[in-house]
């Protein structure tokens, strides 16, 4: 009682307000990250785990150098990383292509239909992802729905090879990450004031011009957040390439899984994980910088 009447030092308040977040980040972000970085600098134990001696070959190996056992220069891990980035970017593009028009359309629906649509978007979360991916296997396989339909229509004579291809991986990842792209875009489109679009049209802008000068810039934050939340899990995904890619399409996630579960090389797995983390943190930093600058710029204009 007495205590609460005492004036608190001014610096204490922000510190206390920030402490739950800081604590959360320390425990759930910095802690695991520190373990990962430490492991990535240690020698792999013969039966898994780590030996507590410094080992400098994990990162060099990512870039293709020899690792004491394998004496050839082989940039295979960078190739895999590049491939993962490419597949993740394609996933971002396909989800965006589907979600942007869909979000527009849904936001213009009467409110009852709209809430049903929103429910349908989140509905897949009620079923295990693995089950849903297996369903895609049934759809894509040679004796699956699509091939049988096309063959019975006489459009093809031989079944198309769709299962276990890169295309199947992209379909699977697009399907899994669709809601993650949809929700932020929808949020920004819903906030879009109709008056601005009207004003743009009244002032003689063509629909195309209105889209690029008014609608797109105003919904861009939603697109960027959607792109980031889709890109990050796509890059590290190992389940979709494993199931729908038939483990023939290798992504960084599969490499990491391989290190921990089969090659008994935790430090190298940790180094690979750290490489993904670093790439993502770098991207996020750029995003934060660009965003804070654009907020600053818009404030400057206001004055």
């Amino acid at each position, binding site marked *: 009682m007495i205590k609460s009447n005492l004036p608190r030092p001014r610096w204490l308040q922000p510190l206390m307000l920030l402490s739950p977040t800081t604590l959360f980040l320390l425990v759930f972000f910095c802690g695991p990250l520190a373990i990962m970085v430490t492991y990535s600098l240690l020698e792999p134990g013969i039966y898994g785990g780590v030996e507590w001696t410094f080992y400098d070959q994990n990162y060099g190996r990512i870039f293709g150098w020899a690792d004491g*056992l394998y004496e050839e220069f082989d940039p295979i891990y960078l190739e895999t990383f590049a491939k993962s980035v490419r597949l993740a970017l394609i996933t971002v593009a396909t989800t965006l292509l589907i979600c942007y028009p869909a979000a527009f359309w849904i936001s213009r629906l009467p409110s009852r239909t709209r809430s049903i649509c929103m429910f349908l978007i989140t509905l897949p979360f009620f079923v295990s992802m693995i089950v849903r991916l297996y369903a895609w296997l049934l759809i894509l396989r040679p*004796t699956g729905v699509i091939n049988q339909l096309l063959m019975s229509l006489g459009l093809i004579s031989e079944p198309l090879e769709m299962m276990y291809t890169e295309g199947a991986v992209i379909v699977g990842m697009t399907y899994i990450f669709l809601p993650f792209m949809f929700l932020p875009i929808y949020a920004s489109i819903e906030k879009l004031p109709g008056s601005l679009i009207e004003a743009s049209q009244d002032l003689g802008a063509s629909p195309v011009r209105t889209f690029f000068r008014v609608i797109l810039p105003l919904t861009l934050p939603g697109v960027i957040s959607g792109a980031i939340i889709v890109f990050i899990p796509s890059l590290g995904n190992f389940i979709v390439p*494993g199931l729908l890619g038939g*483990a*023939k399409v290798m992504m960084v996630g599969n490499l990491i899984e391989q290190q921990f579960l089969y*090659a008994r090389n935790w430090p190298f797995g940790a180094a690979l994980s750290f490489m993904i983390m670093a790439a993502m943190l770098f991207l996020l930093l750029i995003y934060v910088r660009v965003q804070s600058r654009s907020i600053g710029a818009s404030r400057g204009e206001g004055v």
Partner: protein
Amino acid sequence: MKNSSRGGDLKRLALSVMAASAVTILPTHVSAQESLNLYNWGDYINPEVLTRFTAETGIEVTLDTYGSNEEMLAKLQAGAKGYDIIFPSVHMQDVMAHLGMLEKTDINQYTGFSHVDPAFLTATTDPKGEYCLPYAWGSVGIVYNKKLAGKVTSWKDFFALTEKGQKVTMLDDMRETLGVGLIMNGNSVNSTDPDELKAAAAFLEPYKQGIAAFTYDSIPMVQSGDIAAAHWYVGAMMYVTQAPDTLDYVIPAEGATKYQENMCVLKTAPNKENAIRFLEFFTQPEIAALNTAQQMNGTANKDAIELLPDALKNNPNVNPAADTMSRLQMFTDLGKGLRLYDRVWTRFKTSQ
């Protein structure tokens, strides 16, 4: 049967979670009644064996499962307690022996041990059977769709399918699949010679287009005709007996790998006496036969073979003759050499 649960990383993850939660529950049901806690591969023991054991001894048995040797080791190393008996593959038994995790049971002193075929005392750390009891074994061969593939008797036939534009799958296991390449080049499946490994990958390379996938989930696709044949375990016999007109399993003529699991008692076992009683119980030929008849794999109990149903006893791919047996190789632990496989395997998988 063990093999199906070897697949699917998520399945494995789910199993681990289940096993982990089981570990925390275990200590609650102690004393009062005599108990025994088994930690085994998924579906790798006939439940009837456990019922019979409980009926005979009054010992309550609990069973938890794992999906891979590595997972089981990692769990135990992370401190999972309460388990009495585990079922490691032979090379993992050696690893665990080196780590000092196994209890000496002197099971070879027990009279029933005479039923065990000494050819199955394959662990280098336990050549006399002082620690573990050989449990079951099986080959890793080819399961195929007769209507699509015709008759398959060898790896040559298997790879020839891909040249005819048909699809096959191989296991998503670097040692098994590179192992086929090693066998075809006449090398040991335990080779750690970088050149032999690269030659093994080079052997497989031309067929990569026809290898639809590296997966464990192959049986339904062989059955539906999505693929013509699959590199798979003898456990496929369970499906073959259900659909004998479509499916068949064969040990390839050039040779194949075999696996063997042993029953071992942990140093940390809370019920060591009961565990040893279970090992003794399992040396009985009729119990081993009861297990094998349901599992459709091989038994290390030489007197159990006579008691098996004819369909198993007379099937040369399940109960192979001596010359076929001599062409089956077993994996040993390679220590650091495993990392060499990892590199060659990653290169092989990612090459276009």
